[in-house]
């Protein structure tokens, strides 16, 4: 099982060290790790997630510049370690409202308390965010003031959360809300690959059903879809009962309180994609002309927002001069070119054009960048998934129900 967890800053400094078992892990392992990751050719810390160091096996994930590192010496499922680190990162950013070195250093007490609750003797204990909130109060100004005034630094609540003993460990027992409401939100991400011939290679939707529930008592909810057959595969929150899904493809569950991901799903083999990007490149004698056109291909019926086209300039480009007739073009230090368009105007098609100057001695550009597109469409789920109805049972007072949908671009790539 896990022996130790380290949090490293983006400069390799150990922010936090948490020993989990009696077998101490020396800090020198972090130095070793950091030297390894720096020595990698592409310095984006893209070392393997599982590393066999001379003394330990390391699992690592990187979130917003913070490297989470877990060490073990014995055989264990590597995904357990990785998944757990991911949960830790989620919970911390949830508690602290974002992750960075300073915010962790400001809230050491809370971070250690959280880790204490989340893992015990190297084995994950309580990872459900709702329960953790009951046990350890999130930091806020009032509690900070209190701790300064009273000198009592502990945020750990005195009583045990009721849920630990109930049969629904994700929900606290006595909940009372003055106005009961539940919102269901379909958030979809579209993954598309369009190859250099302009043909669609892959188009898929990964969607999440997010539920934000503020309901009293122990409600029993049933959510059913109008067209569940289009779902290729699904993953559920632990609160979902498997039987009803197997028999009639409906989701029956007792919700945790607050916002949570009820289920994620995948829809494959879609034909329509909302935005086209047409890059054209021609290079001769050391310069390369580039022009990119963007437009709506299949109108989704709603406004397409915050369109961004990004690509990396190839290594052999020494300088670039790009302009657009709509939106702004930025070239960042790491040779990433980002063209933010926003909404597509009605009267003209946005176009970016310009020249790339190649390095000395290079006549032609023969590597082709890949364009990554970002967009957002509110109010529509492009997969076509429709919610049929949501039944609420076991509620003292009637509740307000709400539904929303949105689609974003996931890995939406156009190759040139």
């Amino acid at each position, binding site marked *: *099982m896990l022996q130790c967890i380290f949090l490293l800053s983006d400069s390799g400094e150990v922010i936090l060290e948490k020993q989990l078992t*009696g077998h*101490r892990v020396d800090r*020198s*392992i972090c130095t070793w790790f950091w030297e390894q990751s720096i020595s990698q050719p592409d310095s984006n810390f893209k070392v*393997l*997630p*599982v590393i*066999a160091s*001379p*003394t*330990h096996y390391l699992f690592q994930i990187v979130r917003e510049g913070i490297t989470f590192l877990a060490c073990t*010496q*014995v*055989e*264990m*499922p*590597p*995904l*357990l370690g*990785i*998944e*757990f680190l*991911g949960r830790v990162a989620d919970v911390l950013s949830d508690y602290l409202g974002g992750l960075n070195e300073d915010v962790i250093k400001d809230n050491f007490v809370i971070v250690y308390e959280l880790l204490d609750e989340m893992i015990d*003797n190297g*084995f994950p*204990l309580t*990872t459900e965010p709702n329960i953790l909130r009951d046990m350890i109060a999130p930091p806020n100004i009032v509690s900070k003031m209190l701790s300064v005034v009273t000198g009592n630094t502990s945020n750990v609540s005195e009583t*045990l959360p009721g849920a*630990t*003993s109930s049969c629904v*460990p994700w929900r606290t027992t006595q909940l009372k809300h003055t106005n009961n409401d539940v919102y269901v939100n379909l958030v979809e991400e579209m993954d598309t*690959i369009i*190859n*250099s011939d302009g043909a669609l*290679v*892959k188009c898929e939707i*990964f969607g999440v059903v997010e539920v934000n529930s503020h309901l009293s008592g122990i409600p029993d909810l049933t959510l059913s879809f109008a067209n569940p057959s289009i779902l290729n*595969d699904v*993953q*559920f*929150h*632990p609160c979902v009962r*498997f039987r009803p899904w*197997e028999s009639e493809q409906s989701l029956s569950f007792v919700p945790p309180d607050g916002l949570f991901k009820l289920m994620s799903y*995948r829809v494959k083999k879609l034909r329509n994609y909302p935005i086209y990007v047409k890059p054209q490149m021609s290079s001769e004698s050391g310069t390369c002309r580039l022009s990119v056109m963007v437009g709506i291909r299949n109108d989704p019926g709603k406004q397409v927002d915050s369109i961004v086209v990004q690509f*990396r300039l190839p*290594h052999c480009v020494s300088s670039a001069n790009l302009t657009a007739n709509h939106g702004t073009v930025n070239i960042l230090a790491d040779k990433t070119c980002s063209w933010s368009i926003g909404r597509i105007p009605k009267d003209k098609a946005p176009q970016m054009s310009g020249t790339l100057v190649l*390095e000395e*001695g*290079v*006549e*032609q*550009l*023969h*590597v*082709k*960048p890949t364009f*990554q597109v970002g967009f957002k469409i509110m109010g529509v789920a492009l997969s076509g998934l429709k919610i049929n109805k949501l039944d609420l049972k076991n509620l003292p007072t009637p509740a307000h129900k709400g539904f929303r949908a949105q689609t974003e671009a996931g890995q939406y790539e156009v*190759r040139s």
Partner: protein
Amino acid sequence: MAGIRLHVISPLVLVAVRKCARDPSVYVRKCAANALPKVNDLRLEENTSAIIEIIGILLNDNSPGVVGAAAAAFTSICPNNLPLIGRNYKRLCEILPDVEEWGQIILIGILLRYVIARHGLAKESIMASLLPNIFSNEKTGSESDTDYLDIKKKYEIGIEETELAGMVSRSYLAGQDKYLSVLDNNSDVMASEHVSSLFTSSKHDESVKILLHCTSPLLWSRNSAVVLAAAGVHWIMAPMEEISKIVKPLLFLLRSSDASKYVVLCNIQVFAKVMPSLFAPNIEDFFINSSDAYQVKSLKLEILSTIATDASISVIFQEFQDYVRDPDRRFAADTVAAIGLCAKRNPQVAKTCVEGLLALISPKSNTCGFADDEAVVLIQAITSIKDIIKQDPASHENPIIFLIRNLDTIKVSVARAMIVWIGGEYNSIGNIIPKMVPVILRFLARSFPSEPIETKYQILNAAAKVLLNSKGEDFDTAKNILSYMLELAKFDLNYDVRDRARILRKLLSCYFTSSRIEEKEKADNNEIEIPVLLAEHVFGENVKSSIETVNKRFYLPGSLSQIVFHAAPGYEPLPEPCSLTESDMVKGLEGPDQTEVNDSDVDSGSLNEEGSYYSEDSVTASTRTDDESATSETGNNNNTDSLISFADVSKPQEETNDISELMSKGDLESWLGDNNGQGQSQSQSQSVDERIPSARISIGDISARIKPNIYTLLDPTYGNGLKVEYKYSLEASTISPSLVSVDTFFQNCSSDPMSKLILTDEDSESVDQGSSESQKDEPVFVPMEEITTLEPGQSIKRVIHVHFHHHLLPLKLTLWCNDQKHPVKLRPDIGYFIKPLIMNLDAFSQKESQLPGMFEYTRSCSFTDHLAEVASDDKDGGMSSTKDSFLIICQSLASKMLSNANLHLVSVNMPVDAHLNDASGLCLRFSGEILSNSIPCLISVMVYGNCFEPLNASVKINCEETVFGLNLLNRIVNFLAEPRLTS
């Protein structure tokens, strides 16, 4: 409380935990389960049974939360105590979906192990179908239900590379060799019955069905670790038509974080290798996104090239064309390699592949300077082409011509060398090439001095090959060119080029002397023929390419070992099928360890009578050479130290109770000897004489007592009367210091003579015929010389050399005898991966202080070997024996250590204030260095307890290489704890 880690309070904690385990509150029970591993961590042996009992209670609990925590405790404390699971198996399965996600991961693993141990493999599963011999048995067997055969037929097409796949399934299981040996003589009816009983039907057997049923909803879990664990169960146990269930969930995991994506891909890669048809419909999931990390990209490429089918290959190639233009050139080079692989697997697309690759080489695309990364792609492209051509040279005439034409424009030395090689190798194909090659050679001859070294080698080789193949007019030109080149090479700056030129000249001297080809043909005598044959043989050889690295080791899906490609400490393959019997279940808490006792041990036990000859003769001979120096050293020490020790010893014993003062071995013996002397009230001068011989005798004793274990490689009953045994030699290998040398003894027990005995590496011929996999990390077996004949009763000793690379799994070899093949297994012994490192006590303690903290690990065990001797000594020895008992302990401990591992005994220390019969504080130090990297490895054994009772030995290892150190520690503890076979 349990976290305090105080030995003193542990009984109290245990009582508290026991009480809490029956507490009405679920939370309290859960915490009790969590506390158990901590209590166990204190390593108090007397508590173990109590802890296991509590685990049993907790596993019986009704609340899912408690069961999850109890499962975690179970794996960390007693993972092999499967009967404990058996009692609650059904309930555990049913409760599984409700257990919290972290507990699920662990519990799935436990249940899988239990089912395999209890009921064996599922008959319909992919694992069973992959052991080909079982097929034949099953067909003849009584249970040939047609239903099953249909399924099998359907899926036989789906499973390619059964060889590889069979290996995968075999490497999952422990103790498989037993079955393999059974399967080898499958004429035996008993054997086939035995085998079929190993398999259970997942359709008919309730326990398997329930496990599969309960794990299938877990494939929808949001926790990727749970999904992968559940997929692993289905992979091993599910019937083949249901195995496709795991595909979608696994592919869904690819959308999760980068880190888990990599792990999942590693596992999919193995699945895909065994059963490409499984993932073949889902190729677009493995298409590469530009945001993927490099490792993910290369894994996806490898999977794509594995699952490519005739139907999908065109789509995949279109993708590859895009990848080749990726800005990341390293990845582009990988793509080129993958194209080559695809072409090899699907020969009908080879033509298109080659054309595509040639386009890459063509001068047009080559203008982007000659940056390093660009060269990588170019070299890879030519390597791929070379591999494709190699499969069917005749049909690829045009590509060869194209390459040769472009030789002028290609400047990268490796690529040039490769093209020259291609030209030389295929110089006689078709009509055009034979004409082109001499021209090219002439051109190369002119530029020879300015070529880089690699190219020079290949030019020389190519010229020689052309010479061998040419006739008539061409022969003269070729000869002229070659002699010109050799002349140039003679004065080359590089010595290797000069040497090669000289060898070539000697080899081909016949061609130079005989001015005409007709003469050569006429000259039919051997003098000329031999060099010609030799030359043809030399140049007929192919240059090995090392593009494809087929990973030959497989571990359980979802395990850490599968990702890092070596067995992590604590990794265990699945238990032997059906090793858990009813009687074990009845016994309850008694683990199935009885069946685990290796048959090899039994064999070696029964064969020890014969084996001991060897150990007496050869081993003492060999060790004596080693020890002689040591003997003389300690002898010298004894002499020099004796002056000091006199002073100590002459005093009454009570005065020498300075605790910190420790005595060296020499001192100890002189002290013992001296006590004897005093007992006999002799003068000091006489006691000196006595002391020295006594020291010598004791060392002689130890070396005589070292008996390396002899293992059986082939039993006479299976090998038609041929018996092969082996033992690890203490001498360093004569070939390379990193090799482990193994003494092998062949004995003919039958009445007929045997011939052509040879041991070869099994994998070299059986696996993946065409591809040249040369992974760096796998055990390398240096071929031994053949034994031509072996008369009845005769026995021959051969030394074989193996480079294990620290792998601890058995090495599979093939023993050929009378042209018959016997698969055999060589079990590595980590104790012989090291060699003695001579050092003195000061150097030892200095080195030890340099390796603190994470380089130091300790384990303890009980040691009983000395008991018999001490007891017998006590009976007839009377007074003097009490003093000798220390010596006996030292001797038996040292001989045990030295006969199981190749170490140097540094010192034996004992505290001066030792009480009568209390051996506590006795300390033996050994040193060795790891063969492969010469990292020193220090071992100290401390002994506690009474002389007449089993001693508690605590073994400490200081070694920089932690994984190795831990493995060695486990090995030492194991052999120390196991009782001596022959007294």
